[in-house]
């Protein structure tokens, strides 16, 4: 049996452990006369050469390792839930642990992984290269963002180890339960607040970089799609994150000073809390998905050997998603007792926001038309991204319909929707990206056969894991349920088995990548015959990316 304390200890070990693995990995050769960024010797030595480096590429890798560390914790927590849910009643833990586990799972997955994820890792690494710059506009601020990220994460995680219980509110921190519970909600909130700052600073940095540092000749409409999606994302980070910042601060004030903003016992309004929370958290889902779409928009053209179909339409739809995405937050509150007018408006806007996503899907498909398609690991991931993203997005349509949402809200259907789209979307795009850019980042090639095996195991595990949850939701199983009625047993078994298969796939993928970073064959500078700027420079790139800033015709 897994006790509450055990979960604490266990996450502790993983966090500390993963942090120190990275440094040993990186010994590579350079194919330029200048030292590449991995070998470069700066003012500091050892680990300090990384954690005090302002090189955007090193910062990108710092994020990669820290996020991977959290990610493994989050994934194992997910697995624990699946063990628990394999049968009704108690299987491996108490209700108390279960509540703490899904809360921590949600917080790590959302705030520590997919929100910062792709912009912080690939954005940092490739944005300057893709627009022909030597670094971001504020390199020091960039480093500060990483430090804030780590500090925020540490504060949030510290809630697990302090006296008292781990937070058990769910990642949404709904009032007034988050005031009532005696668990350590405060550090989790403060951690999320700091993480917000980190995210804002990254966004700010990227916008200025794109405005001011594009290589000569690179007009706005010559920028690759990935930077464009980062641009849209950055604006959301800038304009939505402060709202959740202030909300969390108000919750802190309410807990400490007893000002009744949200607690009805003090005259506050709990639904107002939900408004403020989702004003951030809905746009935040587009913070997650837009950069993922950006990666897909790079991978598909490269492997179809042609330029993306309808460049302008893709750019415009990116900006539209970012914009309309601000005004649909209420679809998370359809049963919370909002007025009829707002229900109508929010449902309507929710359906509108699907259009730009649809445009993107169609353009990606059209890019494949008459291409000369090379099926390699990154392409497998990209194509399966299309599939799972469609499922996730289309199930979002079902949820957006008012009457159906009443039935499906807060059920396993929602859980399935967002795993398909968050994890299917962002996760698959992340794997597409890491396999696509791996040769550039490390100057090494991974073992393609293992990578493909990992993909297929993972993909089918994924489908088996989450598809039954659609059924469970329709049948009426509420989410955040530690225990369930026997009717739901069979689908839950299927789902749990899916999780075990998927984890096996994940293990293959990660081990393959780690081994290859160390021992892989040397990679060429342009293994996929890509057309964007990162493929014109050496693998791995030199410290300031370009010996000479390129001129774009």
């Amino acid at each position: 049996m897994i006790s509450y304390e055990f979960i604490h200890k266990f996450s502790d070990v993983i966090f500390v452990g993963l942090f120190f693995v990275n440094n040993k990995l990186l010994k590579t050769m350079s194919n330029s006369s200048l030292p590449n960024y991995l070998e470069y010797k700066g003012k500091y030595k050892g680990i300090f050469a990384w954690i005090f480096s302002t090189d955007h590429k090193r910062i990108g890798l710092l994020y990669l390792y820290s996020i991977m560390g959290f990610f493994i914790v989050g994934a194992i927590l997910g697995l624990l839930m699946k063990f628990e849910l394999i049968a009704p009643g108690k299987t491996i833990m108490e209700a108390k642990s279960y509540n703490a586990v899904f809360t921590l799972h949600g917080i790590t997955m959302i705030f520590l992984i997919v929100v910062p994820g792709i912009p912080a890792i690939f954005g940092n690494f490739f944005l300057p290269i893709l627009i022909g710059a030597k670094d971001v506009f504020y390199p020091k601020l960039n480093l500060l963002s990483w430090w804030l990220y780590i500090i925020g994460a540490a504060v949030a995680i510290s809630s697990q180890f302090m006296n008292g219980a781990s937070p058990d509110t769910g990642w949404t921190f709904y009032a007034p339960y988050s005031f009532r519970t005696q668990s350590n909600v405060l550090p989790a909130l403060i951690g999320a607040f700091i993480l917000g700052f980190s995210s804002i600073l990254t966004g700010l940095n990227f916008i200025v970089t794109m405005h001011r540092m594009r290589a000569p000749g690179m007009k706005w409409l010559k920028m690759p799609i990935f930077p464009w999606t980062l641009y849209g994302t950055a604006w959301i980070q800038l304009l939505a994150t402060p709202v959740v910042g202030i909300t969390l601060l108000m919750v802190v004030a309410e807990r400490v000073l007893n000002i009744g903003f949200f607690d009805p016992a003090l005259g506050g309004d709990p639904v107002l809390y939900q408004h403020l929370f989702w004003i951030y958290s809905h746009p935040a889902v587009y913070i997650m998905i837009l950069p993922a779409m950006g990666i897909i928009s790079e991978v598909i053209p490269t492997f179809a050997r042609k330029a993306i179909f309808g460049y302008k339409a893709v750019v415009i739809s990116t900006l539209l998603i970012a914009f309309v995405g601000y005004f649909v937050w209420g679809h998370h509150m359809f049963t919370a007792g909002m007025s009829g007018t707002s229900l109508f408006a929010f449902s309507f806007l929710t359906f509108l926001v699907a259009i730009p996503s649809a445009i993107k899907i169609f353009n990606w498909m059209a890019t494949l038309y008459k291409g000369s398609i090379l099926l390699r690991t990154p392409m497998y991931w990209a194509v399966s991204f299309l599939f799972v993203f469609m499922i996730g997005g289309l199930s979002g349509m079902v949820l957006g319909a008012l009457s159906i949402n009443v039935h499906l809200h807060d059920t396993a259907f929602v859980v399935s929707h967002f795993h398909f789209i968050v994890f299917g979307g962002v996760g698959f795009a992340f794997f597409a990206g890491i396999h696509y850019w791996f040769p550039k980042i490390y100057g090494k090639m991974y073992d393609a056969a293992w990578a493909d095996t990992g993909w297929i195991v993972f993909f089918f595990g994924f489908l088996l894991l989450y598809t039954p949850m659609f059924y469970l939701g329709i049948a009426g199983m509420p989410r955040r349920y530690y225990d369930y009625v026997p009717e739901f047993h069979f689908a839950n078994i299927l789902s749990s088995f899916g999780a075990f298969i998927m984890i096996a796939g994940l293990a293959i993928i990660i081990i393959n990548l780690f081994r290859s970073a160390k021992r892989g064959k040397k990679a060429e500078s342009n293994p996929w015959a890509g057309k964007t700027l990162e493929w014109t420079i050496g693998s791995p790139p030199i410290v300031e990316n370009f010996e000479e800033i390129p001129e774009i015709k």
Partner: protein
Amino acid sequence: MEETKEHKIVSFKTYIIILFLLISHTALSVFVTQIDLGNLSVIVALSIAALKSLLVFSFFMHLLYDKRMYAFMVAGVLMVMTLVLIITFLDYGF
């Protein structure tokens, strides 16, 4: 990208005039809200505040003299903010 463009130097006189306008509007809003206008006083006070901030934005913060882009950005951000406020109020006022 080196920026060599000349910056416009705003004269002290302009600033003083704006300051004068700002202070007189403050006085006006205090005055108007002292007489009882009911709900209207909320609207008047906030309109005056909006006018004042418009002055600050365009003169003190140089939106009138800088690149157009900044003015557009500010307008866009304020628009998002207002829309969010209005949409929130669909749940309360209607």
